[in-house]
């Protein structure tokens, strides 16, 4: 009787203590087995990575970041990760840091460097330290948009001064540049997309269209070189200027908005709304107007602008840690964005399917 009492109490006490410990371990998401393997990687910068962020292999959680410290000379960062001992590392393993979710949480991915030829991995100076790279923040991509805009502006100024065969060549080169940049953009966004959800997929779709449009545009530029029609050139010039001005406003808006996080969401909202309206208007205009070469410029620019806006939106979300809550509580904003993307898509599809409608006139030259 007495013994039974003691046994029962002992059982409850031990079970309670074990439950508390097990619960603490489980809730913190640590691994059960004590066996861990520590790997180290080196980076130039670690973005928003923090101790405790997950380590993934092909999207599977295999461990967590245990330590982040600057290198002795201060020219790099070492990151220690504690991972399951049984994971198989690729032969050319590298660690890629990227954002994990729209919350702004980052993660470390163990990847095969061969899969990311366009990324520069920091070479490890010591043995057993993995080379690492971090993906740029999407907000960085908006800077590219600003560069494009200034390029186009310079171009249009030059065209106005002297429109010669030489300048036509420059136009072509510039457009090729644009194509290149958008390819680059697509590459970046493509990498980001692996970690983002539906929003990013739409961005990717849009970028793809931008790229095609750019190709078409460069074809057009070739035609411009062969045939110079003074009257049409004026129209090209006017449109190009307007477009670049638009783009510049947009980029300045973007840089303004990324400056102050509290304002970001509101700014993104209006930007997206403006864009939605513009795109719709554009779509209508394009179908209503006599298709001409003139439309190619604005279309291209608008498309790029759309992409830039979306990038900013995503970038802003990512920058504003936890602003997702605000974004999410405003379904109107999200719908607006979706609508804008949809309009853009339709426009792009139209351009793709009936290039003649937009480009046909050019062939006349």
């Amino acid at each position, binding site marked *: 009787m007495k013994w039974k*009492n003691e046994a029962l*109490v002992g059982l409850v006490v031990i*079970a*309670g203590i074990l439950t508390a410990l097990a619960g603490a371990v489980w809730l913190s*998401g640590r691994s059960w087995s004590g066996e861990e393997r520590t790997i180290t990687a080196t980076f130039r910068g670690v973005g928003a990575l923090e101790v405790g962020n997950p380590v993934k292999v092909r999207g599977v959680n295999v461990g967590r970041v245990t330590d982040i410290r600057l290198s002795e000379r201060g020219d790099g960062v070492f990151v220690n990760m504690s991972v399951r001992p049984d994971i198989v590392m690729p032969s050319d393993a590298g660690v890629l840091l990227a954002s994990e979710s729209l919350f702004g949480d980052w993660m470390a991915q163990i990847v095969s460097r061969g899969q990311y030829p366009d990324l520069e991995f920091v070479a490890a100076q010591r043995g057993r330290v993995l080379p690492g790279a971090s993906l740029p923040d999407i907000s960085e991509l908006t800077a590219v948009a600003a560069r494009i805009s200034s390029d186009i502006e310079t171009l249009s100024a030059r065209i106005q001064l002297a429109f010669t065969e030489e300048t036509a060549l420059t136009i072509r080169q510039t457009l090729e540049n644009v194509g290149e940049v958008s390819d680059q953009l697509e590459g970046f966004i493509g990498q980001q997309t692996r970690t983002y959800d539906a929003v990013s997929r739409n961005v990717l779709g849009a970028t793809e269209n931008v790229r095609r449009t750019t190709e078409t545009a460069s074809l057009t530029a070739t035609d411009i070189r062969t045939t110079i029609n003074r009257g049409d050139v004026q129209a090209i010039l006017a449109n190009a200027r307007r477009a670049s001005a638009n783009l510049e406003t947009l980029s300045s808006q973007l840089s303004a908005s990324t400056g102050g996080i509290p304002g970001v969401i509101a700014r993104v909202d209006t930007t997206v709304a403006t864009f939605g309206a513009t795109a719709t208007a554009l779509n209508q205009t394009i179908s209503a107007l006599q298709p001409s070469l003139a439309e190619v410029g604005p279309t291209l620019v608008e498309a790029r602008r759309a992409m830039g806006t979306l990038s900013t939106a995503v970038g802003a979300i990512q920058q504003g840690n936890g602003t997702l809550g605000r974004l999410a509580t405003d379904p109107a904003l999200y719908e607006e964005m979706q609508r804008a993307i949809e309009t853009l898509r339709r426009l792009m599809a139209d351009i793709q399917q009936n290039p003649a409608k937009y480009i046909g006139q050019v062939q006349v030259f």
Partner: protein
Amino acid sequence: MLARRGVRSYLDRMNLSLPFAIVGGAILGLLSSFGQFSRFVGDLIRALTDVRTWGPLTVGQMRRLGVDSLPIALFLSCFTGIVLALQASYTFTGAIPLYFVGALVTKTMILELGPVLTGLALSGRVGANIAAELGTMRVSEQIDALETMAYNPIAYLVVPRVLAGTIMVPLLVIFSNVLGIASGWITSMNVLDMTSAQFVRGSRLFYDSFDIVYCIIKSTSFGLTITVLGCYQGFNTRGGAEGVGIATTRAVVLASMMILVLDAFWALVLLQ
């Protein structure tokens, strides 16, 4: 009653010292009851040295006050978990991700509802039990009998109960937390159309290892409060069955109040 009688007689005589007498009386009463309580706590601490008296009795009290309270604690937390999950999903309408339900259930259960609800339930079950038992022993002179047989009644009766409560309440709270979270989890999966992974993700989202420490500190203080107040009221019972009733009520009411006060106290001290 005394005051009212005093008021009438004093008003008749227009005695101006009355307000001072009332204030002074209240302060003296407060001080004397505080003094009595401090002496009780002092005796309790001194009695801790008498291990041979309380040692063998503590396990029995742990069984009676702790293990036997497990059903009520678990019953309570089971339903709390269900309600928390449902209310969280009701609150998080629209675009807030559903996995926040997991975060809310886990966090609320560990930080607040687990300790406080268990504490309140136990102040009824354990506090009342102790006060009634010791009160009956007091009025039937069993405590005096203990003393005449050279037992220190504090070491024999109070210390085992206080220790048992202080040790067992945190354990009960841990079990409550586990069951509360589990019932919230099951509710989320079956009623709210969440996946298990979503709930777990939410649970871990805001978890901090200090949460459990905080929970244990808090519930230990609750266990101590409930048992000390129950013992104190029981020990100072006077006058028959009615006295036992008064002591029991007082023990429960004071313990419940102190639990809420301590709850706020710990939040201020530890969560700031």
